[in-house]
């Protein structure tokens, strides 16, 4: 899994791969982000989506006031990418679609 490809993109703050139980498999962050916490959050939200909406694979883009968090279930685990809110969200999504 080429997680490093995401962090090369402008305004992407970090990306990682996390197992369903929230343990980081792989992760890269540019700034102060605690990838363990972020991975745990991604796993929690992904599991919630799967349970609540009865879907096999979770896929979501979550916007907050400062950031955008992508999460996507893949065969290897849950891929997540966090970027600034003014990042090129469309580009990140395309990369994520290709990767997952």
């Amino acid at each position, binding site marked *: 899994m080429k997680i490093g490809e995401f962090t090369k993109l402008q305004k992407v703050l970090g990306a990682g791969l996390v197992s369903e139980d929230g343990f980081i498999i792989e992760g890269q962050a540019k700034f102060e982000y605690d990838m363990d916490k972020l991975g745990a959050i991604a796993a929690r939200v992904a599991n919630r989506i799967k349970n609540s909406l009865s879907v096999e694979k979770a896929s979501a883009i979550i*916007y907050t006031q400062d950031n955008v968090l992508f999460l996507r279930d893949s065969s290897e685990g849950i891929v997540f990418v966090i970027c600034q809110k003014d990042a090129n969200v469309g580009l990140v999504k395309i990369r994520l679609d290709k990767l997952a």
Partner: protein
Amino acid sequence: MSDELRVDSGALIFATLADVYISSGMIDEAISILKDGLARNPNYHLARIILGRAHYLKGELDDAKKTIESVYEQVKDSESANLYLGHCYRDSGQKEKARGYYEATLKINPENMEALKELEKLIPDFTPPPVPTAKKAEPAVAEVEERVERKTEDEEEKEAVGVGEEEGEVAVTEEESVAVIEGPEEPAVLSKEQEETKIETVGSLIEELPEKKVEIETVPLEALDKPVKRLLALDTVKGVFISTKDGLLIKNYGKAEHDIEAVCASVAAICMDVDESFRLLKRSGLTRCIIEKPDETLCVMAVGDSLLTVVTEVEAKPGLVFVYARRIIEDIEEILG
């Protein structure tokens, strides 16, 4: 408490308790306490009407009719007595009689919806009687008159039954007006003197009443209809719904075939999880999110304490949905805060 009341069935409060039993579906208990209470207070007509109602609800139409008709002469001005007699006769197939009782109900209260509906069913070209305008135009006067009449009737009832003031007050139920039929009927034509006295009493009571403006808050969700319709006009949009952040549906503009309440709860649960998680990171919470399912996409936007969810097909353009939704978000913020 119910045991104490049951023991003291000599008190008129047994009717209130029975009413509570009926509301809770405990019809047999209500009938039992009413019969017991009526054995001690045979002239308590309100209780007899409630007993008739209990019999009706139990499906004992003959008993219901017999019970209410036994006091009908004394309670013929009772809205409830007429309504339930109407129901009894309707259910036993005597439509003409039922119609008579429903009409009597409407004479007493022209806004009785149950009677109106039944009459509409019984008479195809039925036109509801006009609601007296005086009642609407001069609510304060009507209210004061009601108070004056009620006061007189209460006093008469207390004398007749011989109960304490407190008991009399507790026994009041929604059918309070029925309880006071025992008093002598007011003469149809008042003498000039009587009329003047009544006007004076009413006048003094009007002065006593504090001026209180009742503000009824309405939520004009209809204002959202237009922008939502524009959004729904997009081919890929399957449905739009507004819910509270804790998952309760506010309004559904559904094209989608969903268990909408379940979707509301699920979306709210996801949003709560996101908010909570980001709070751990000391970051701001969710403003919007796109959840991709194999068969559809959910675009969720947080607006104050509400969530606007747009259900779209997979091939929809979320960017376009958010642009269209912006107008609705502004309106929701304005309406729901």
